[in-house]
């Protein structure tokens, strides 16, 4: 089904939350309880990464206004920079990224039903000028927005030279602008209110434990995305590997995303270990193994999943990521008051 999504409706309901969140932000002066782990993660990781995302997206939007040719290196460089910045925060799926479905509008992946190319083809056919305005594109299907949609426009032959030429140029510029608007909103929310709500932990989060658990959950989200989606989807099964399901293979970014994800999850895990040197050492080792393996793959699109001689290296990588998950669940979780889920691991 590809009916028009009702964003206006969602926005109306989300707006209440924004107002509510703002009201909370104004009502509480952060009590400045020193939450060392939380401050460290916010100040050294989350806030700089969100700033980098907003700034590199703004750069991309600027360049996309003036350069249309998809192969132009300034445009591609800007795209890669901004997409990198997104992948580095793609595990931080709570709060500002979830308002108005911002994260989904930046990253509609996996796209198991091929909605992204369908939506883009429809846009090009209709050549609707309304889509070229920020409001118009913000209300269009998320499958046609964000980094993964832009990848089609820049790297897929069906789209890189699609006609009408002028409309395609204007649409890609509008898509880049939409990314910039979205990432700026995420950064602004983090900076203006959300980070403070995590530090003071007296409104949205009841106490510091809840804040740490949210961060721990995002660590798990990132590792799960890595093992099950970024690796698991292209791996498929031995008899039926699915190389075309690799993330961002058109732009040759699949392997790179694995490295980026591990490199941004590692400092989060280390910080959550809260100075436990023994645990930190084990985490370092458990991260280094897959990071080194991912760096050495020499398989940017993960095409090796379909080649028995190379496939085992990707399977080994997936195993190392799963080992890492097991270590984090058994040794890091309990210290943060997080036990393995009674219901979430069971299922019936």
């Amino acid at each position, binding site marked *: 089904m590809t009916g028009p999504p009702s964003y206006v409706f969602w926005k109306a309901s989300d707006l209440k939350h924004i107002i509510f969140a703002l009201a909370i932000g104004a009502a509480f002066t952060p009590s400045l309880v020193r939450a060392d782990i939380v401050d460290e993660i916010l100040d050294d990781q989350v806030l700089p990464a969100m700033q980098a995302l907003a700034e590199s997206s703004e750069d991309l939007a600027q360049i996309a206004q003036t350069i249309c040719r998809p192969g132009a290196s300034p445009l591609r460089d800007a795209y890669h920079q901004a997409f990198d910045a997104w992948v580095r925060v793609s595990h931080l799926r709570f709060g500002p990224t979830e308002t108005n479905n911002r994260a989904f509008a930046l990253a509609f992946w996996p796209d198991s039903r091929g909605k992204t190319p369908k939506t883009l083809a429809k846009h090009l056919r209709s050549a609707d000028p309304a889509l070229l305005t920020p409001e118009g594109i913000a209300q269009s299907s998320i499958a046609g927005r964000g980094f993964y949609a832009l990848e089609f426009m820049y790297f897929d032959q069906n789209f890189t030279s699609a006609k009408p030429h002028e409309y395609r140029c204007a649409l890609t510029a509008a898509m880049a602008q939409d990314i910039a608007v979205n990432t700026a909103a995420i950064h602004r929310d983090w900076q203006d209110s959300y980070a403070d709500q995590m530090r003071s932990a007296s409104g949205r989060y009841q106490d510091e434990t809840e804040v740490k658990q949210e961060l721990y959950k995002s660590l798990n989200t990132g590792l799960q995305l890595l093992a099950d989606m970024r690796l698991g989807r292209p791996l498929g099964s031995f008899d039926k590997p699915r190389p075309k399901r690799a993330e961002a293979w058109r732009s040759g970014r699949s392997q790179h995303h694995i490295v980026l994800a591990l490199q941004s999850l590692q400092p989060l895990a280390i910080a959550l270990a809260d100075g436990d040197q023994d645990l930190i050492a084990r985490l370092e080792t458990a991260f280094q193994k897959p990071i080194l393996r991912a760096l050495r793959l020499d398989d940017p699109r993960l095409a090796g999943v379909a080649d028995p001689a190379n496939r085992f290296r990707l399977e080994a990588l997936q195993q190392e990521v799963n080992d890492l998950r097991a270590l984090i669940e058994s040794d890091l979780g309990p210290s943060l008051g997080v036990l393995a889920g*009674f*219901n979430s691991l069971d299922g019936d």
Partner: protein
Amino acid sequence: MTSRRGFLAGLLASSLAPTPSWADLGRPAFLTAAKDPDGSYLLAGLSEAGAIQFTCPLPGRGHAAAAHPTRPEAVAFARRPGRFADVIDCRNGTPLARLEPPQGHHFYGHGLFTPDGSRLFTTENDYENGRGRIGIWEVARGYRRIGSFDSGGVGPHDMLLRQSQSGPQLAIANGGIETHPDSGRAKLNLPQMRPNLSLLSLDGQVQEVMELAPELHLNSIRHLAISSQGILGFAMQWQGDPGADLPLLGLYEPGTPPDLLAEGDPRLRNMRGYGGSVAFSPDDLTIGVTSPRGGVVQVMETRSGHIIKEHALRDVCGLATARSGFIASTGLGAIAALTGHTAKQLRHHDLAWDNHLVPLT
């Protein structure tokens, strides 16, 4: 303070109706199984406000329970492949009977009583034949098994009673997945699985079968809720590749095509392919579905199918209709009230609440 009228009413009730009733236990609103931190398992009755009104021990991990409509008796099912279910006197935990399905069957963890309390129905797996069965038990004769009939599909899981024009009927979620105790919980038939929602008369005549489109054949229909108008809500569990963008909640009004909710909304991904429990709000305007894997309860508008709220609740699974909206339970011990746009913790118990909150009606 006891009023004179209340005192007299109590006196009357006790003299005229000496039989035990749920009132003896303060009329619990919900039944649910749990794990104690010491490793033991129990069945608990909860008030509407989430307070524990009774507990009684269980021999192993439970799944769902069925409550007798009048007597303070509950049938606690072992989790699948369950070889037994215990009938418990909830006043003191005394086991009243142990139900064992016939050779070649095991329980799936759900069951229900007829409104008059005379019979119990249980969802079962006839695993040698790979067919779903519904077992029939006669309550008055010490829960004696008096027969069984085909469930209308494979892997019957949740089951509800529905009033139709032709009388009461069973709504059965045939999850479609074939399992065999010899291979534990391994799923044996994913390529061929065909879940359905079947409506059967109380004597086992198939009245309606609802199946989803073939491309959704890996979406196992598992748990049910019913609105005051008799519309069924069904929650699904996706057995295909992770990351697929699929509906996990639907509405079915017999005689009309099913209505899949929130289709195309990316937030369905937050459910991680798994709908745990489902319930309608008391006004039927919204329906909620839990996902322990996603740590989220999604509330959708029944009329439009739109997601109107996501409540983040770690390890949430149990969900039931409550006077002011929904009540939810988590594996971390929380009982929460979900009202409109807010989630409020009502209670926290040092227990891990298991899969379902079963309403006592």
